[in-house]
Protein backbone atom coordinates (compact mmCIF):
# COMPACT_ATOMS: atom_id res chain seq x y z
CA UNK A 1 0.00 0.00 0.00
CA UNK A 2 1.34 3.39 -0.91
CA UNK A 3 1.84 5.64 2.04
CA UNK A 4 1.59 9.24 1.01
CA UNK A 5 3.60 11.53 3.16
CA UNK A 6 6.68 9.43 3.16
CA UNK A 7 9.18 10.91 0.84
CA UNK A 8 8.84 14.11 -1.12
CA UNK A 9 5.46 15.29 0.00
CA UNK A 10 6.43 18.32 1.99
CA UNK A 11 5.33 18.77 5.57
CA UNK A 12 3.12 15.74 5.38
CA UNK A 13 6.15 13.50 5.79
CA UNK A 14 7.15 15.20 9.02
CA UNK A 15 3.66 15.19 10.42
CA UNK A 16 2.57 11.78 9.34
CA UNK A 17 1.27 9.43 11.98
CA UNK A 18 -1.71 7.22 12.28
CA UNK A 19 -0.83 3.77 13.46
CA UNK A 20 -0.26 2.33 10.04
CA UNK A 21 -3.26 4.03 8.46
CA UNK A 22 -2.42 6.08 5.41
CA UNK A 23 -4.29 8.02 2.78
CA UNK A 24 -5.02 6.44 -0.60
CA UNK A 25 -3.16 7.48 -3.74
CA UNK A 26 -6.34 9.10 -5.05
CA UNK A 27 -6.05 11.85 -2.42
CA UNK A 28 -6.19 15.30 -4.02
CA UNK A 29 -5.95 17.35 -0.84
CA UNK A 30 -5.80 16.73 2.88
CA UNK A 31 -5.93 19.26 5.69
CA UNK A 32 -5.01 17.80 9.06
CA UNK A 33 -5.25 19.79 12.30
CA UNK A 34 -3.08 17.25 14.09
CA UNK A 35 -0.09 18.47 12.07
CA UNK A 36 0.75 21.65 13.94
CA UNK A 37 3.37 22.55 11.35
CA UNK A 38 0.59 22.98 8.80
CA UNK A 39 -1.10 25.79 10.75
CA UNK A 40 -0.20 29.47 10.71
CA UNK A 41 -1.81 32.50 12.30
CA UNK A 42 -1.28 34.68 9.23
CA UNK A 43 -1.96 34.05 5.57
CA UNK A 44 1.69 34.38 4.64
CA UNK A 45 2.88 31.58 6.86
CA UNK A 46 5.19 33.78 8.96
CA UNK A 47 3.65 33.15 12.39
CA UNK A 48 3.06 29.52 13.31
CA UNK A 49 0.18 28.37 15.43
CA UNK A 50 1.61 27.23 18.73
CA UNK A 51 -1.15 27.22 21.33
CA UNK A 52 -4.85 26.77 21.93
CA UNK A 53 -7.00 29.69 20.79
CA UNK A 54 -4.48 30.86 18.22
CA UNK A 55 -6.30 32.04 15.07
CA UNK A 56 -5.66 30.08 11.90
CA UNK A 57 -5.05 32.25 8.85
CA UNK A 58 -3.39 29.52 6.80
CA UNK A 59 -3.99 25.75 6.81
CA UNK A 60 -1.52 24.03 4.54
CA UNK A 61 -2.58 21.12 2.41
CA UNK A 62 -0.70 17.97 3.29
CA UNK A 63 -0.31 17.25 -0.41
CA UNK A 64 1.34 20.63 -0.78
CA UNK A 65 -0.84 22.25 -3.41
CA UNK A 66 -4.13 23.53 -2.06
CA UNK A 67 -3.64 25.66 1.04
CA UNK A 68 -6.69 27.19 2.71
CA UNK A 69 -6.47 30.72 4.06
CA UNK A 70 -8.42 33.59 5.56
CA UNK A 71 -7.28 37.20 5.18
CA UNK A 72 -9.83 38.70 7.55
CA UNK A 73 -8.54 38.34 11.09
CA UNK A 74 -11.97 38.16 12.69
CA UNK A 75 -13.03 35.38 10.35
CA UNK A 76 -10.21 32.98 11.21
CA UNK A 77 -11.11 29.77 13.02
CA UNK A 78 -9.29 29.03 16.26
CA UNK A 79 -6.96 26.14 16.93
CA UNK A 80 -7.82 23.90 19.84
CA UNK A 81 -5.76 21.23 21.58
CA UNK A 82 -6.82 17.94 23.09
CA UNK A 83 -7.89 16.17 19.93
CA UNK A 84 -6.39 18.85 17.67
CA UNK A 85 -9.01 20.71 15.69
CA UNK A 86 -10.10 24.01 14.21
CA UNK A 87 -13.12 25.63 15.82
CA UNK A 88 -15.39 27.48 13.39
CA UNK A 89 -17.69 29.79 15.37
CA UNK A 90 -20.64 29.78 12.97
CA UNK A 91 -20.63 33.59 13.01
CA UNK A 92 -18.08 34.47 10.37
CA UNK A 93 -15.25 31.93 10.43
CA UNK A 94 -14.35 30.30 7.13
CA UNK A 95 -11.40 29.40 4.91
CA UNK A 96 -10.90 29.80 1.18
CA UNK A 97 -8.71 28.67 -1.70
CA UNK A 98 -8.92 29.82 -5.31
CA UNK A 99 -8.92 26.34 -6.78
CA UNK A 100 -11.07 23.47 -8.00
CA UNK A 101 -8.53 20.88 -6.89
CA UNK A 102 -8.19 19.99 -10.56
CA UNK A 103 -11.76 18.72 -10.67
CA UNK A 104 -14.20 19.13 -13.56
CA UNK A 105 -17.79 20.28 -13.05
CA UNK A 106 -19.16 16.76 -12.64
CA UNK A 107 -16.31 14.61 -11.33
CA UNK A 108 -15.88 11.41 -9.41
CA UNK A 109 -14.96 12.52 -5.93
CA UNK A 110 -15.28 11.93 -2.22
CA UNK A 111 -15.03 14.38 0.64
CA UNK A 112 -14.09 12.67 3.88
CA UNK A 113 -14.41 14.86 6.96
CA UNK A 114 -13.88 14.28 10.66
CA UNK A 115 -15.93 16.92 12.44
CA UNK A 116 -18.17 17.78 15.33
CA UNK A 117 -21.23 19.58 13.96
CA UNK A 118 -22.42 22.21 16.42
CA UNK A 119 -26.00 23.24 17.06
CA UNK A 120 -27.42 25.47 14.37
CA UNK A 121 -30.89 26.67 13.57
CA UNK A 122 -30.00 26.86 9.90
CA UNK A 123 -31.09 24.11 7.54
CA UNK A 124 -27.97 24.19 5.39
CA UNK A 125 -24.45 25.10 6.49
CA UNK A 126 -21.48 24.10 4.39
CA UNK A 127 -18.53 21.93 5.36
CA UNK A 128 -17.08 21.98 1.84
CA UNK A 129 -18.21 24.14 -1.06
CA UNK A 130 -16.62 23.86 -4.51
CA UNK A 131 -17.67 26.34 -7.18
CA UNK A 132 -20.06 29.25 -6.97
CA UNK A 133 -23.73 30.03 -7.57
CA UNK A 134 -25.89 27.28 -9.10
CA UNK A 135 -24.50 23.84 -9.82
CA UNK A 136 -21.88 23.74 -7.07
CA UNK A 137 -20.61 20.66 -5.25
CA UNK A 138 -21.34 21.26 -1.59
CA UNK A 139 -21.25 19.06 1.48
CA UNK A 140 -23.69 20.28 4.08
CA UNK A 141 -25.34 19.67 7.41
CA UNK A 142 -28.07 21.52 9.25
CA UNK A 143 -31.59 21.14 10.52
CA UNK A 144 -32.52 19.40 7.27
CA UNK A 145 -29.89 16.75 7.91
CA UNK A 146 -26.69 15.78 6.13
CA UNK A 147 -26.86 16.71 2.47
CA UNK A 148 -25.27 17.15 -0.88
CA UNK A 149 -26.18 20.70 -1.93
CA UNK A 150 -25.92 22.25 -5.37
CA UNK A 151 -27.81 25.57 -4.95
CA UNK A 152 -30.35 24.38 -7.51
CA UNK A 153 -30.98 20.92 -6.13
CA UNK A 154 -29.98 18.65 -3.28
CA UNK A 155 -30.02 15.17 -1.83
CA UNK A 156 -30.68 14.91 1.90
CA UNK A 157 -29.77 12.06 4.20
CA UNK A 158 -30.47 11.34 7.89
CA UNK A 159 -30.70 13.88 10.66
CA UNK A 160 -27.65 15.31 12.40
CA UNK A 161 -26.75 14.66 16.03
CA UNK A 162 -25.23 17.99 16.98
CA UNK A 163 -22.23 17.77 19.27
CA UNK A 164 -21.30 14.24 18.22
CA UNK A 165 -17.91 13.78 16.57
CA UNK A 166 -18.22 11.75 13.38
CA UNK A 167 -16.52 10.86 10.14
CA UNK A 168 -18.82 12.02 7.36
CA UNK A 169 -18.24 11.16 3.71
CA UNK A 170 -19.96 12.68 0.73
CA UNK A 171 -19.18 10.86 -2.53
CA UNK A 172 -20.36 10.68 -6.10
CA UNK A 173 -19.48 9.12 -9.46
CA UNK A 174 -18.33 11.04 -12.51
CA UNK A 175 -21.16 12.23 -14.73
CA UNK A 176 -23.78 11.57 -12.09
CA UNK A 177 -26.93 13.52 -11.25
CA UNK A 178 -28.00 15.17 -8.02
CA UNK A 179 -30.14 12.11 -7.39
CA UNK A 180 -27.03 9.91 -7.50
CA UNK A 181 -25.22 11.64 -4.64
CA UNK A 182 -24.23 9.32 -1.78
CA UNK A 183 -23.30 9.75 1.86
CA UNK A 184 -21.66 7.66 4.58
CA UNK A 185 -21.59 8.29 8.31
CA UNK A 186 -18.85 6.58 10.32
CA UNK A 187 -18.27 4.21 7.44
CA UNK A 188 -21.90 3.21 6.93
CA UNK A 189 -23.82 4.38 3.86
CA UNK A 190 -26.98 6.29 4.70
CA UNK A 191 -30.25 6.22 2.79
CA UNK A 192 -31.46 9.44 1.22
CA UNK A 193 -34.63 10.90 2.67
CA UNK A 194 -35.39 13.39 -0.08
CA UNK A 195 -34.02 14.77 -3.32
CA UNK A 196 -34.71 18.06 -5.07
CA UNK A 197 -34.20 18.30 -8.83
CA UNK A 198 -32.71 14.79 -9.02
CA UNK A 199 -32.01 14.85 -12.78
CA UNK A 200 -29.86 17.97 -12.73
CA UNK A 201 -26.07 17.75 -12.79
CA UNK A 202 -23.43 20.03 -11.26
CA UNK A 203 -22.27 22.69 -13.69
CA UNK A 204 -20.18 25.23 -11.83
CA UNK A 205 -16.57 25.42 -12.95
CA UNK A 206 -15.59 28.33 -10.69
CA UNK A 207 -12.21 27.89 -9.04
CA UNK A 208 -13.52 28.63 -5.56
CA UNK A 209 -13.20 26.32 -2.58
CA UNK A 210 -14.73 27.29 0.74
CA UNK A 211 -14.72 25.55 4.09
CA UNK A 212 -17.28 26.81 6.59
CA UNK A 213 -19.16 29.23 4.37
CA UNK A 214 -22.18 29.14 2.09
CA UNK A 215 -21.28 32.11 -0.07
CA UNK A 216 -24.72 32.30 -1.65
CA UNK A 217 -26.47 32.98 1.66
CA UNK A 218 -25.83 35.96 3.91
CA UNK A 219 -24.89 34.75 7.37
CA UNK A 220 -24.22 31.30 5.96
CA UNK A 221 -21.44 30.18 8.26
CA UNK A 222 -20.85 26.78 9.78
CA UNK A 223 -20.51 26.07 13.52
CA UNK A 224 -18.24 23.05 13.76
CA UNK A 225 -15.04 21.60 15.12
CA UNK A 226 -13.00 20.36 12.17
CA UNK A 227 -10.30 17.73 12.72
CA UNK A 228 -9.45 16.88 9.16
CA UNK A 229 -10.85 17.18 5.67
CA UNK A 230 -9.73 14.97 2.79
CA UNK A 231 -10.75 15.16 -0.86
CA UNK A 232 -10.34 12.12 -3.08
CA UNK A 233 -10.57 12.13 -6.86
CA UNK A 234 -12.53 8.89 -6.88
CA UNK A 235 -15.71 7.28 -5.57
CA UNK A 236 -13.92 3.99 -4.93
CA UNK A 237 -15.31 2.45 -1.75
CA UNK A 238 -11.93 0.92 -1.02
CA UNK A 239 -10.22 4.31 -1.13
CA UNK A 240 -13.05 5.93 0.81
CA UNK A 241 -12.82 3.35 3.61
CA UNK A 242 -9.08 3.90 3.80
CA UNK A 243 -9.49 7.68 4.07
CA UNK A 244 -12.24 7.25 6.65
CA UNK A 245 -9.96 5.14 8.83
CA UNK A 246 -7.28 7.80 8.51
CA UNK A 247 -9.71 10.57 9.44
CA UNK A 248 -11.19 8.60 12.32
CA UNK A 249 -7.75 8.23 13.88
CA UNK A 250 -7.37 11.99 13.90
CA UNK A 251 -10.70 12.66 15.60
CA UNK A 252 -10.69 9.77 18.05
CA UNK A 253 -13.69 8.23 16.33
CA UNK A 254 -14.25 4.49 16.32
CA UNK A 255 -15.66 3.26 13.05
Amino acid at each position, binding site marked *: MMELGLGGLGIYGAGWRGGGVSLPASTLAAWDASVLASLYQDTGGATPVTAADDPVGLWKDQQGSYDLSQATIA*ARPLYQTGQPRLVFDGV*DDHLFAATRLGLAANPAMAVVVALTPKVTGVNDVRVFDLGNSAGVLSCSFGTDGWAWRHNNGNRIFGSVTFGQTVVATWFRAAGSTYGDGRFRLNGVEQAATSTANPVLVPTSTAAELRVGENVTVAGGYTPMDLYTEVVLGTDSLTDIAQAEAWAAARAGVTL
Partner: protein
Amino acid sequence: MTDTVTVAVPEAHMVAANCLASCLVGQIAGQDTFRGPGYTSATGERYAVASAPKTMWTAAFDPLALPADSDGSVSLDCAYAAQAMVAYWDAQDDVPMPAVGPDVIVALAGMSGMEALAAMGLSPITADET
Protein backbone atom coordinates in the same frame (compact mmCIF):
# COMPACT_ATOMS: atom_id res chain seq x y z
CA MET B 1 -15.01 30.03 22.88
CA THR B 2 -15.17 32.55 25.66
CA ASP B 3 -12.11 34.58 24.71
CA THR B 4 -13.75 35.95 21.62
CA VAL B 5 -15.97 38.98 21.23
CA THR B 6 -18.99 38.90 18.98
CA VAL B 7 -19.89 42.24 17.44
CA ALA B 8 -23.15 43.19 15.74
CA VAL B 9 -23.19 46.24 13.50
CA PRO B 10 -26.37 47.81 12.14
CA GLU B 11 -26.41 47.74 8.34
CA ALA B 12 -26.20 51.53 8.11
CA HIS B 13 -22.94 51.63 10.06
CA MET B 14 -21.00 48.82 8.39
CA VAL B 15 -18.57 51.16 6.62
CA ALA B 16 -17.71 52.95 9.86
CA ALA B 17 -17.38 49.67 11.74
CA ASN B 18 -15.00 48.35 9.10
CA CYS B 19 -12.92 51.53 9.46
CA LEU B 20 -12.74 50.84 13.19
CA ALA B 21 -11.84 47.19 12.58
CA SER B 22 -9.07 48.24 10.20
CA CYS B 23 -7.58 50.48 12.86
CA LEU B 24 -7.84 47.78 15.51
CA VAL B 25 -6.12 45.12 13.42
CA GLY B 26 -3.69 47.60 11.87
CA GLN B 27 -4.42 46.51 8.31
CA ILE B 28 -6.72 47.89 5.64
CA ALA B 29 -7.80 44.27 5.11
CA GLY B 30 -9.85 44.84 8.26
CA GLN B 31 -12.38 46.54 6.01
CA ASP B 32 -13.71 43.09 5.17
CA THR B 33 -14.50 42.32 8.80
CA PHE B 34 -18.19 43.16 8.61
CA ARG B 35 -19.84 41.76 5.51
CA GLY B 36 -23.38 41.06 4.58
CA PRO B 37 -25.48 42.01 6.44
CA GLY B 38 -26.15 38.41 7.32
CA TYR B 39 -28.33 38.58 10.41
CA THR B 40 -31.66 40.07 11.34
CA SER B 41 -33.39 41.05 14.57
CA ALA B 42 -36.92 40.18 15.53
CA THR B 43 -37.97 43.63 14.34
CA GLY B 44 -36.40 43.13 10.94
CA GLU B 45 -33.31 45.31 11.31
CA ARG B 46 -30.31 43.87 9.53
CA TYR B 47 -26.87 43.43 11.04
CA ALA B 48 -23.39 42.41 10.00
CA VAL B 49 -21.74 40.23 12.61
CA ALA B 50 -18.15 39.25 13.25
CA SER B 51 -16.50 37.31 16.01
CA ALA B 52 -12.94 38.31 16.82
CA PRO B 53 -10.28 37.72 19.46
CA LYS B 54 -11.05 39.54 22.69
CA THR B 55 -7.70 41.30 22.56
CA MET B 56 -8.80 43.06 19.41
CA TRP B 57 -11.97 44.54 20.83
CA THR B 58 -10.77 45.39 24.31
CA ALA B 59 -8.66 48.02 22.54
CA ALA B 60 -11.73 49.49 20.90
CA PHE B 61 -11.87 52.38 23.34
CA ASP B 62 -8.21 53.32 23.10
CA PRO B 63 -6.92 56.14 20.91
CA LEU B 64 -6.91 54.92 17.32
CA ALA B 65 -4.26 55.00 14.64
CA LEU B 66 -4.59 54.44 10.91
CA PRO B 67 -3.50 51.01 9.64
CA ALA B 68 0.17 50.72 8.78
CA ASP B 69 -0.72 49.97 5.17
CA SER B 70 -3.27 52.77 4.94
CA ASP B 71 -4.05 53.80 1.37
CA GLY B 72 -6.54 56.53 2.13
CA SER B 73 -9.55 54.24 2.18
CA VAL B 74 -9.73 54.32 5.98
CA SER B 75 -10.18 57.53 7.93
CA LEU B 76 -9.89 58.16 11.63
CA ASP B 77 -13.09 60.22 11.56
CA CYS B 78 -14.92 57.20 10.23
CA ALA B 79 -13.33 54.90 12.84
CA TYR B 80 -14.06 57.25 15.72
CA ALA B 81 -17.68 57.53 14.59
CA ALA B 82 -17.97 53.77 14.99
CA GLN B 83 -16.04 53.77 18.26
CA ALA B 84 -18.61 56.17 19.71
CA MET B 85 -21.34 53.64 19.03
CA VAL B 86 -19.66 50.62 20.63
CA ALA B 87 -21.37 49.14 23.68
CA TYR B 88 -18.98 46.52 25.09
CA TRP B 89 -20.34 43.98 27.55
CA ASP B 90 -18.77 40.99 29.20
CA ALA B 91 -20.81 38.11 30.58
CA GLN B 92 -19.09 38.73 33.91
CA ASP B 93 -20.36 42.33 34.05
CA ASP B 94 -22.90 43.10 36.74
CA VAL B 95 -24.92 45.39 34.51
CA PRO B 96 -27.64 44.64 31.98
CA MET B 97 -26.52 43.51 28.56
CA PRO B 98 -26.95 46.24 25.93
CA ALA B 99 -29.63 45.64 23.33
CA VAL B 100 -28.99 45.78 19.62
CA GLY B 101 -30.46 48.78 17.87
CA PRO B 102 -30.03 51.00 14.84
CA ASP B 103 -27.37 53.24 16.39
CA VAL B 104 -25.42 50.95 18.66
CA ILE B 105 -22.63 48.51 17.90
CA VAL B 106 -22.99 45.77 20.50
CA ALA B 107 -19.86 43.79 21.40
CA LEU B 108 -20.43 40.78 23.65
CA ALA B 109 -17.62 38.94 25.41
CA GLY B 110 -17.59 35.91 27.65
CA MET B 111 -19.70 33.64 25.48
CA SER B 112 -19.37 31.77 22.22
CA GLY B 113 -20.35 33.38 18.96
CA MET B 114 -23.52 31.33 18.67
CA GLU B 115 -24.47 32.11 22.29
CA ALA B 116 -23.88 35.79 21.66
CA LEU B 117 -26.09 35.78 18.58
CA ALA B 118 -28.85 34.14 20.58
CA ALA B 119 -28.41 36.63 23.43
CA MET B 120 -28.70 39.50 20.97
CA GLY B 121 -31.78 37.98 19.41
CA LEU B 122 -30.22 37.78 15.96
CA SER B 123 -30.79 35.02 13.45
CA PRO B 124 -29.20 34.38 10.06
CA ILE B 125 -30.87 35.81 7.00
CA THR B 126 -31.41 32.64 5.06
CA ALA B 127 -32.75 32.01 1.63
CA ASP B 128 -34.38 28.75 0.60
CA GLU B 129 -31.18 27.40 -0.85
CA THR B 130 -31.15 23.91 -2.16
